[in-house]
């Protein structure tokens, strides 16, 4: 009998506490949202399962433990290997033509980063976070998971879990968060602006873009090179037309493998003792603020640009909301919103893809600046 009691006392069951149960519930909610609501399932399922296994007492499956997930964390996140590889895959999967055909939408992608700075300032001054922590919290407003993870792993690794959770959660909640903001900041007349089709872009221009952007951005902000360099390399693979095997690998199996590793290890950073703090709640709240202000920034800047454009050339300000870079979710949300508001007469999906992909570059540059000034 003593042996049985001894065995039980060494099992995980004997060590489960209230915190673990709360984390199990959080894990269950994420997995439920991923399966039942299809909210970012490719990420929320690995993250949810990572949370689950990391909170199994004595299993050593947390990212800071010595098990397999700890090994992946040390080799993939601490070394900054995985986020740039995700960017490589994103580059392969992204068509920059809508942006190149309407270059003014670059500016909307820039304006939609305003939430990053507002949230960072708020986190530092209102809640007393250190500058590094504040920058990491602010970057949630970029709505770019890999960029958030990349920055957090370098500036504030202890915030990696909540920051990644906030980034991916808000990305998945774009269809809920953005429409009320769009409705609040635009008039019916503005929503009905039907933009002409973007000019078509030559193959040469499409090939020059990734090389030029990769070089210019990396020279200007060298610390953004791992993200932007890989993004542009992936895009060159896509557009060259002669590297079909590389394109299929980088945009398929490779990004899938890395997504599994990234999601699982990020989820496994969220152990009860580290995650269940008031700091986490503040991060989630500030992330929402960042995301909301980024959306507002894009829309308001589009309205500002319209002040200088002639009648036939005005842009639909709703596409500014897509600058938050949750690709392609934000552009789809804008399309659905505008189409519903105009009874299907206006369909700005391709126009919204411009600021959407510009936002990816914008948030990577912002992360690079934070790294340069804070590391």
């Amino acid at each position, binding site marked *: 009998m003593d042996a049985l009691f001894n065995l039980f006392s060494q099992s995980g069951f004997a060590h489960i506490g209230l915190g673990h149960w709360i984390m199990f519930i959080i894990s269950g909610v994420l997995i439920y949202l991923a399966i039942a609501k299809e909210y970012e399932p490719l990420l929320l399922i690995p993250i949810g399962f990572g949370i689950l296994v990391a909170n199994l007492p004595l299993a050593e499956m947390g990212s800071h433990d010595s098990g397999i997930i700890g090994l992946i964390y040390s080799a993939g996140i601490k070394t900054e290997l995985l986020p740039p590889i995700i960017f490589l895959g994103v580059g392969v999967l992204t068509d920059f033509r809508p942006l190149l055909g309407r*270059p003014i939408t670059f500016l909307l992608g820039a304006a939609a*980063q305003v939430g990053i700075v507002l949230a960072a*300032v708020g986190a530092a001054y209102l809640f007393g976070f250190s500058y590094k922590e504040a*920058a990491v919290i602010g970057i949630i407003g970029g709505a770019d998971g890999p960029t958030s993870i990349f920055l957090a792993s370098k500036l504030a690794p202890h915030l990696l879990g909540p920051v990644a959770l906030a980034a991916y959660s808000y990305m998945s909640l774009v269809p809920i968060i953005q429409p009320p903001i769009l409705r609040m900041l635009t008039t019916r007349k503005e929503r009905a602006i039907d933009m002409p089709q973007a000019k078509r872009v*030559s193959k040469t221009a499409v090939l020059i873009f990734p090389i*030029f952007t990769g070089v210019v*951005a990396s020279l200007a902000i060298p610390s953004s090179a791992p993200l932007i360099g890989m993004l542009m390399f992936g895009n060159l693979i896509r557009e060259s037309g002669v590297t079909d095997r590389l394109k299929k690998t980088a945009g398929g199996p490779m990004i899938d493998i890395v997504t599994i590793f990234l999601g699982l290890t990020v989820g496994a950073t969220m152990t009860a003792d580290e995650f269940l703090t008031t700091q986490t709640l503040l991060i989630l709240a500030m992330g929402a603020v960042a995301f909301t202000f980024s959306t507002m920034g894009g829309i308001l800047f589009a309205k500002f640009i319209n002040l200088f454009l002639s009648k036939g050339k005005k842009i639909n300000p709703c596409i500014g909301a897509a600058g938050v870079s949750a690709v392609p979710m934000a552009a789809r949300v804008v399309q659905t919103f505008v189409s519903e508001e105009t009874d299907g007469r206006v369909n700005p999906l391709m126009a919204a893809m411009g600021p959407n992909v510009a936002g990816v570059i914008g948030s990577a540059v*912002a992360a690079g600046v934070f790294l340069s000034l804070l590391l």
Partner: protein
Amino acid sequence: MDSPSILSICFSAILTVFLILSVLAISIQIITRLFPFKQEKEDTTIYAAIVSSYSVIHPGTKITKIEEIK
């Protein structure tokens, strides 16, 4: 030298983002003017195939434009 405040760091960040994306926007404008899109010649075989297929489905229909969306 004192370390910069979060306010100046954030100001630098948003300014740099605007600056770099503006430079890219202007550069792309120039690049697309230097290398404009040229309409490829129509493939007469594909044109004939589409016209004949469509005339079977919708007799009397006149094809005025065929556009390839990639």
